[in-house]
């Protein structure tokens, strides 16, 4: 059990829950959108 202390994901994701993965995707997408908006 202690071996997996920091592994919070599944076979498909490194995140502990789908919602956390969704939020991370949203954060990345907004960063990209902002970068595109200001640089072009």
């Amino acid at each position, binding site marked *: 059990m202690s071996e997996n202390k920091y592994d919070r994901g599944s076979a498909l994701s*490194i995140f502990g829950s789908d919602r956390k993965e969704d939020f*991370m*995707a949203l954060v990345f997408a907004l960063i*990209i959108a902002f970068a*595109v908006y200001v640089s072009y």
Partner: protein
Amino acid sequence: MVYTKKSPALLVIGIVMLAIWYLAQSGMMNGYLEHLAMGKKYKMLGELTTLPLYFGAIAAVLGAWQLFGSHKEGHFDYYSSTIAGGMFILLIAMLVRWFIAPEVAVVSTSMGKVGETGKYIHKLLGLNYVVLGILAGIVIVNVFKVPEWAQNGVRLSRLGLKTGVILLGTLYSAAELKNLGGLSIVMIGFFVLGSVGMTLWIGARRNIPNSMGGVLSAGMGVCGVSATVAAAPVVQAKSVEIAYTIGTILLWGVGCMFIFPIVGHLFGMSYIQFGAWAGTGILNSAQVAGAALAFQPDGIETLKVAEIFNITRVLVLPIIVLWLAVWYVRREEGAQKVNVGEVIFAKFPVFVLGFILLFALSTTGIFAPANHYKGKYFNNTTDFKESKLLKAEDKATLQAEAGKVQREDRKAALGRLIENGKVMSIDDDDVLRGLVNAKVMSKDANKILKGAHKAVRHTAKKVKAFRNWIVWLFAFGLTGLGMQITVASMKQAGGQPAVIGGIVGATKAILSLVVVLMLIGDKV
């Protein structure tokens, strides 16, 4: 447990990327790139001379740190252990996009176009970087196995796909809906929702897993890869189920592309009728275009209608995802226990809200002019450069061949182009594109017309940048997804998806044909 492996792999990946960049930057690769471009300009040189430098440098530095540094267990170690696998997927995606996909196109082009579709085999089969990326991943996992140092990184692929789906919102705008009449919106809604419902119903009766039925229904109902990817997390779809769905859609589309034009001519359908039918019944964008051009090789009226129908299906995506979220929980946990409101709150994917958010932002016109259409917009009134006007010799070439043009609308549009030196309206642009497609005039004249089209209609820079991001996120995500598909998992999934896809696809094609013939005349 320390997750970061003391392996030279990431360092080597960085060096390989830097080597690719150096070969491209120094021109040592020019001969090979010319071969891949088949006499044209190699389109991805911009990417090839920048991305491997940036990512190669990052991978080399982090690779040296992973190899020579000391690592303690903890959250940081857990997340940093994904970098090697992430860069491994990225390298494979780079090789597929820049070299393997163009090489497949070279071979396919050398084999000639397929029948009246006017398209090459790789276009018809959708053998682009997306499909080839999945195939590359499947080969790697089944032939070589994913190395231990890369395994954590492979689990980043879904994050990449979700980010790509959110950014897809930037490519669409509610302004597109104004091109549609009420009937077409009803028709799209009915057939999208009908196909999803039917796939779920048949899937349940044939006892396929709920995750397989869910992801297949989104693919069959909405359109192709994007919908499949967006729906997959909601129904906990396995990698192999996503790949099967994409395969089913592509194969179904290939059959439709040949059958639809024949049926269309048999029934004597109008351009608008056929466009509406192809845009509803065929799932993959390239295949919709193939069928429309096969039906009407001498113009683009059919293609335009088909494209509008095809694109608008994506706008139904959030509704489908919501439906699937509720359906999946009901199926998995039993209907009596489910409170729909709670499920929507607890399970509704935030990334689909992100798609809606960026779609709303795109509709305001902050990424491209308000009248943009999937990134294309007409720019004929402001900042039109003098250098883009037709030259005297171009006008003379067009004038000399004007007599070949028979249709009155084409004659008039051509006349206005020659008089003003530029295309004067969106309508004229459409008519002149039809004239190019009809191959009435010589190659030289058509080249001038294409140049005039490009001068007024082009993709907004921001939209172009978004497209590139989406391309790379999908390439990354789907290559990683391929690396999760083993032969054993494919055997387990069996041939059911293709059977169900065939039944639903055929029903949709027949019903939409009936509706189109009964309700659609010359206007949509």
